[in-house]
């Protein structure tokens, strides 16, 4: 049975994030290859880190662990400042050669709780749920149609409405 220390805070920490929304499915997705963000229940951090077998010592000593762990990179990420979010967005611009991938980006606030590792510019958390989402005016997403062979394009207003309905949170177009 694991022992957990007494809580330091009785209110969730609020961080800032980017997500993708409307890349086929009406769901928020992290920028990495993590599972989509569920509606109505917390996103739970899982450690996907597995050391390379080439690094024999690290590979041998690796043990599966609950996320986030101090000496790992796992956890649900969030940033502290809008400047850091803007820089992350610029990084995505550099990273993605296909401009359409940038058009599905939305930003917002995320509640973080459970075990949280605070970093200089952000956090890694155990549990998270989006709190407020801002859909940029230039947003352009798409949803698969029922037959999954065709797509339907959605604009910022529709994306904001879909996010609000699905996740039960405040959204705005800005």
């Amino acid at each position, binding site marked *: 049975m694991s022992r957990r220390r007494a809580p330091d805070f009785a209110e969730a920490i609020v961080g800032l994030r980017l997500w993708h929304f409307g890349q086929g499915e009406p769901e928020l997705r992290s920028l990495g290859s993590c599972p989509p963000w569920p509606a*109505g229940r917390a996103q739970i951090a899982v450690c996907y880190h597995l050391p390379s077998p080439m690094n024999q010592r690290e590979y041998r000593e690796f043990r599966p662990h609950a996320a986030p762990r101090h000496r790992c990179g796992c956890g649900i990420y969030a940033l502290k400042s809008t400047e850091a979010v803007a820089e992350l967005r610029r990084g995505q611009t550099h990273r993605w050669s296909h401009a359409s991938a940038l058009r599905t980006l939305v930003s917002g606030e995320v509640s973080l709780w459970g075990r949280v590792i605070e*970093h200089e510019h952000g956090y890694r958390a155990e549990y998270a749920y989006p709190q407020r989402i801002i859909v940029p005016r230039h947003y352009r997403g798409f949803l698969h149609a029922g037959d999954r062979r065709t797509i339907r394009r959605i604009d910022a207003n529709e994306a904001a409405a879909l996010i609000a309905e699905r996740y039960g949170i405040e959204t705005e177009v800005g």
Partner: protein
Amino acid sequence: MEIGAPVRTIVVEPLEEPVPRAPAEPAPEPEPAPQAPVEEPAR
């Protein structure tokens, strides 16, 4: 995502979980109702 060096580890236990009470989770598609077997007429 560059978040810099770790500063501290904290435990956050909100009095109320910050998840909306009435989420709009899409309802699963209903499964087709089982059909009663068709009885062959007695000969």
